[in-house]
């Protein structure tokens, strides 16, 4: 492992192996239910697959983090406790949690299980992070994607836990774990059900020579013939405000902060995280290899720039951003 831990997504055991073979230091995954925030049909691990994958990862010198990062349902918290139990039984290296009740159960039932705080806990200030560290013994916090590198550096000076920052993949422009846009339109949100803009609410229709994507019947975007289409994630839609149609919340681009790796390292970030459990083996192999090379380059004192454009065509809509990391975004 280099100076920064490379954390990659795994939507299946095959993807986990691809990530580790391509150079990931750690992988994160979820069980096949709504206890994790990528609860898509056909994705994720059974408890047996988790155990087998943890064993495989450990034999290959890598770590596995289990995401139990949605909020438990009132009257139905048992599933979340069972997921923590499965993590402990499988030998997973850490669990990634957001819900206060789930954190309390982890602290009480599995005090030696390493706790990471999910980005869904929206802990973006030193005070919030300190609260979770003091109350639950959280060892690492995944930073919200709305902080700039300078803000991260300032934050690091005030906290004692490790940090993990997203550097590649789909960008969430709203405070994670506190966004109800998806459940407003379609009845299911990442908070409670582990999906945003759920597939069952998605439809595409051909209207006057253009393709219109819809979520729960609400038009999200329109594509001319030949233009690449996109998934109708709500905050990536085109809306009319004050008579003007625009991508008001965010252009449908992806995050690529490879050029900022040096800055993140200097800020003291422990780990960088790749988003995309639903993106597949080929995606994770390419991204892991590129970031592995970039991190190794930085550790040799070189620039990571040579590797950045390796990944441009993976971005949704073919375009990228460094997101909030550069303060211009606001």
């Amino acid at each position: 492992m280099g100076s920064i831990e490379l954390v990659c997504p795994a939507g299946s055991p095959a993807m986990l192996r691809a990530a580790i073979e391509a150079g990931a230091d750690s992988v994160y995954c979820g069980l096949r239910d709504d206890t994790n925030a990528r609860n898509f049909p056909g994705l994720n691990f059974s408890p047996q697959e988790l155990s087998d994958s943890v064993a495989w990862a450990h034999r290959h010198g890598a770590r596995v983090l289990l995401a139990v990062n949605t909020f438990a349902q009132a009257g139905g918290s048992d599933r979340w406790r069972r997921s923590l139990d499965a993590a402990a039984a499988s030998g997973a290296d850490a669990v990634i949690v957001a819900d206060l009740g789930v954190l309390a159960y982890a602290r009480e039932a599995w005090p030696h299980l390493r706790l990471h705080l999910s980005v869904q806990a929206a802990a973006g200030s030193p005070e919030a992070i300190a609260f979770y560290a003091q109350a639950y013994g959280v060892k690492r916090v995944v930073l919200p994607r709305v902080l700039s590198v300078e803000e991260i550096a300032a934050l690091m000076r005030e906290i004692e836990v490790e940090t993990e920052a997203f550097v590649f993949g789909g960008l969430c422009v709203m405070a994670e774990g506190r966004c109800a846009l998806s459940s407003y339109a379609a009845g299911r949100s990442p908070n409670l059900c582990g999906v945003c803009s759920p597939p069952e609410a998605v439809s595409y229709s051909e209207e006057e020579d253009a393709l219109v994507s819809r979520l729960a019947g609400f038009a999200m975007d329109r594509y001319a013939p030949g233009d690449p289409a996109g998934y109708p994630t709500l905050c990536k839609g085109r809306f009319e405000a004050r008579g003007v149609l625009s991508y008001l919340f965010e252009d449908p681009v992806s995050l690529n902060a490879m050029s900022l790796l040096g800055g993140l390292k200097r800020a003291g970030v422990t780990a960088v995280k790749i988003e995309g459990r639903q993106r597949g083996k080929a995606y994770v192999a390419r991204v892991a290899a590129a970031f592995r090379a970039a991190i190794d380059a930085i550790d040799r004192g070189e620039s990571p720039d040579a590797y950045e454009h390796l990944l441009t065509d993976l971005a949704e809509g073919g375009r990228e951003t460094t997101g909030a990391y550069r303060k211009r975004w606001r």
Partner: protein
Amino acid sequence: MSGWRRRSKSDGRGRGERLAVTVLMTLRHPPERMLTAALRALGRRRPEVFERLGVANDVDLVVAPSDFPVAFRLRPGHGAGRVEVERHDAARPSAARITGPLATLIGLFDGACDADAAFFARRIRITGDTQAVVALHNTLEAAELTTADLLPLPDPLRRWTGALLSAGLARLRAREG
């Protein structure tokens, strides 16, 4: 819809293609039996694949190659389902319909083609129940199947045939650009 339909409206070529449809539909039972046997063999060999499919087990998914005379109707059925051959304009309901060039569609099956990229670049089109299609997509992604799994052959023969098929398809896709 498909380039298939458009071409059949023009002269001379249309008649030949209508004949191809007729022939393939008349002779559809052997390929149907072969593909159904392959599906069931996969069900016995890899039950976890069908477990992963979840809700997509009990619906019909139609794969309609735009450059091939007929379409394929797939019912996973927890590993005990079936594959049928049907006309492109068969008006039978289905949960979802996937269209695109045949080589691309087979590439989706064995992971040679990135489904997201193909969808967003609009080389393939999907209509219908997105949830069933997502389940199928994620399952294929996780299952690491090969074109060989489309054939109900015993192991070593299946893999060898599959390698040949994959190479052939890759050349075909490269020509399509």
